[in-house]
Every structure is written in structure tokens, then in C-alpha cells.
């Protein structure tokens, strides 16, 4: 039994991880674009971008999942997600990417804006170009400052992936829970917790390494 449960949970965890990594792959860069938008001098760009960030961060991810999955079908009479597991997975991915890019964008913005203006000005009076200032002076300082909040957010994402089940994306908890009905046992549910613990523990170690790597300056 243990072996069967392990295999099923592993299969569920594979979906969890797929959602996790794909979300990061798209939302980390997209967040940077959004943060540039939210800092733009153009009011026509900055205003709408900030509004979107406010809505996305101010409403539950679960609500966003439901709206993104069911919305197009009901409002536009066109189920753009297609049917079947794959369609639901893509809808979930889109919701996660939108949600997490907005969170990341605010972290990036905070990081970029926390760099003292004197760093830019020192670069300017030394005849450096805007590009050189950003890449040679600012970027590493921003990265150092955002690693802790980004790692928090990423560890939250590990656990948030379980929300995808509201649109029937089968992830690990779904699989664990199925044993309550089918076999009347609850330990598989605890077992799913072990997967999460191991994975988030691994990430914690990774981020601590990065932080230590960047601790040579202040």
C-alpha cells in the first residue's frame, strides 16, 4: 500500500512541480517588465499598471483562478482553454503567472527604489552610460536586496499550487485526499505534507546559499 500511495503522490507532485517551475519561469521576468511599467514616467502606463497590481494583490488567488477559468466561457461564450486536463492546467498556469508577476513586480520595484540616488549620480559624474550604471552598479545591489523577499514568495508559491484544484487540476493534495474516500485512510494526507516540507526545505537551503554568496558587501 505504502508503495502505491508513494507512486500516486509522486505523480501528483509532478503536476505540482510542473505548475511551480512554469509559473516561476514566466512570472520572474514578466514581473520585471511590470515593475518598469509601475515606475514609468508615463502616467498613461503607470496608472493602469498600478491598478492591475492593486486588483491582483487585493483579491484571493482562488477567486482569480475561478474567474480566469470560467470567465471566458461564460462572458465571451468561448472556452479559450479547451477541454480536458491540459486546458485546465493552462488556465491555472495563466492565473498563477499573472498573480505572481504582480507580487514579484512589487518586490523588484521596492528593490530598485531602495537604491540610493547617489549610486546613479556617482556613476553619471564618472561618465558611465545609463546601461553601464544599471548593469555594473545597480543590478547586483538590487538582487542582494530582493533575494530574501523573493525567496519568501517562492516558498509561498510551493504551497499555493495546491489551490489549482479548485479548477480540478490534479496536484498532490488532491491525490492524497482521494484515499480518504477510496480507502478510508488519512495518513497519505500527512504524507503529502512530507513532500512539501522536503521541497521547501531544499529551496530554503538554496536561497540561504545565494544570500551567503552575496554577503561579501553591504
Amino acid at each position, binding site marked *: 500500500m505504502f508503495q502505491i500511495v508513494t507512486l500516486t503522490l509522486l505523480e501528483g507532485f509532478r503536476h505540482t512541480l510542473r505548475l511551480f517551475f512554469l509559473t516561476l519561469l514566466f512570472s520572474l521576468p514578466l514581473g520585471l517588465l511590470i515593475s518598469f511599467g509601475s515606475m514609468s514616467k508615463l502616467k498613461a502606463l503607470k496608472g493602469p499598471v498600478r491598478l492591475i497590481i492593486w486588483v491582483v494583490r487585493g483579491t484571493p488567488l482562488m477567486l482569480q483562478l475561478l474567474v480566469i477559468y470560467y470567465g471566458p466561457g461564460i462572458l465571451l461564450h468561448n472556452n479559450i482553454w479547451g477541454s480536458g486536463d491540459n486546458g485546465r492546467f493552462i488556465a491555472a498556469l495563466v492565473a498563477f503567472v499573472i498573480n505572481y508577476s504582480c507580487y514579484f513586480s512589487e518586490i523588484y520595484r521596492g528593490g530598485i527604489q531602495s537604491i540610493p540616488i*547617489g549610486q546613479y549620480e556617482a556613476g*553619471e*559624474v*564618472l561618465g558611465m*552610460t545609463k546601461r*553601464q550604471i544599471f548593469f555594473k552598479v545597480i543590478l547586483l*545591489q538590487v538582487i542582494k536586496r530582493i533575494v530574501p523577499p523573493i525567496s519568501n514568495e517562492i516558498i509561498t508559491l510551493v504551497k499555493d499550487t495546491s489551490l489549482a484544484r479548485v479548477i480540478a487540476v490534479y496536484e498532490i493534495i488532491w491525490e492524497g485526499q482521494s484515499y480518504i474516500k477510496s480507502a478510508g485512510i488519512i495518513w497519505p494526507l500527512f504524507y503529502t505534507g512530507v513532500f512539501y516540507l522536503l521541497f521547501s526545505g531544499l529551496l530554503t537551503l538554496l536561497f540561504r546559499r545565494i544570500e551567503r554568496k552575496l554577503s561579501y*558587501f*553591504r
Partner: protein
Amino acid sequence: MAILEVRNLKKSFDSVEVIHDISFSMEEGETLTIIGSSGSGKTTLLRCLNFLESPDSGMIKVKGEELLCNETLSGMSEKILRRKRLHFGLVFQSFNLFPQYTALENIMLAPTLLAKSDSSFDASGIEDNAKQLLDQMGLSDRMDNYPHELSGGQQQRVAIARAMALRPDILCFDEPTSALDPELTGEVLRVIKDLAGKHMTMIIVTHEMAFARDVSDRVIFMDNGIIAEEGSPAEVIDNPQNERTIQFLSNYKKNI
């Protein structure tokens, strides 16, 4: 010929004029100090010279070359702007060293980048030059330290070396010691005095009256965006004529 000539410089922030029609000139090798009360426009003047602020009008001429003549910086291409501002160096009150680079790397960064894009700038001597500058600042043993491992006085001396590495014609200092603990100001003032002895052309904004009197060839007293009084330290600091200068200096009498 004057190394620097400034004519009718004006600068406003949101319709409040902060620099009213300032004109002055400097000879090569001269040390000019600018004194004046808070808000009189000293920092703004230095920032205009270094193109961190765009003057609204006026002329800036260095070594006979007009850098700016009644035009704003926004009309200038970035490339030309960068070339022109290299006539000046600026040492900030708050040092502004780059924290992720060692003392030596801080000094070498800008010359290295410049040598990449400008073939007329010699790349081979950059490291030796940087080490020599650190030596001149008394920091040879600190070249591999990061800024956070240095005291404020040491950081400011690295910042001076960094500004000098691009061999500016005129080096500007904006209150180089006001962010320092009193016991650290001496070491920074000493290296500046040392530079004055070597005839580096310098403009120094400072509240250190004893130092200003000691090191300057000429002193400018600024008040409300104008030059209220100008002359040798013996004239301006020891025997001021202008009412506002007298009033300003009376607050410093104890320090002199």
C-alpha cells in the same frame, strides 16, 4: 587664460530661482572655496557644473571650450554630455562608493569602461594609476577592502581617488567632511590640502572655516543664490565687508 569661466548661470526649481545669475572664473591650479548658509545654492551650483542638474541659462566654458551656452541638457545627446562632464569630477558628501566593489575596483571601474568605448583613453595604465592614487591617499594597504570595511574617512579618500582617476580638469567637493565624525575630518582635509599643494584645480564647498582659510587661494561667499562677496581668504573670512558675510561668519568665530 582662465581654466573655468561661468557666466550668468541661472537655475530654478519649480519657478523658484535658486541660482540667480552667477558669474565667476578660475585659474588653473587654483583652489576656490565656496561658503554660505544652508540653502544658499552651493550644492546646486556644483551639480550644475557637473551636469547633474540642467542650468536654465548661462555659459560654462572650460579651457576655452564652451560646454554649455544658454541651452538645457535635455537638448544634448547623451554621448556629448558624457564627454563634456568629464572635465569635472565630483566628490559627494556621502561618498557614494559602489558597495560591491573593492577600493581598487571602485577607482578602476569608470576608467575601464571608458577605455572600452573610447580608444583614445589609454587602458594599459589604469591599474597602476589607481594604485598610485590609493598610495597618494595613504590607503595602499586597503585596496582590497570593500567600502563597508572602511571608516568614513577612508571611504571618502577612496572617493577622492575615484574622482581623480578620470583626470578631471576641475575637481569639485561638496562638503566632503560633513558626514564624518569630527576625529575623521582631519585625514580627509589633509589629502585635499595635499592636492592643493600639487596645484590640482579645485572647487570646495565647505563649512570648515579654518580649513577654507588655510587652503584657499580664493573664497566665494554665496547668499540666496548670488555671490555676495568674493576675494582672498584674508579679505572674505578675516575682513568681510558684506553685511550678510559678517553675520554668517559670526556664527563661526569660535571655530577660527
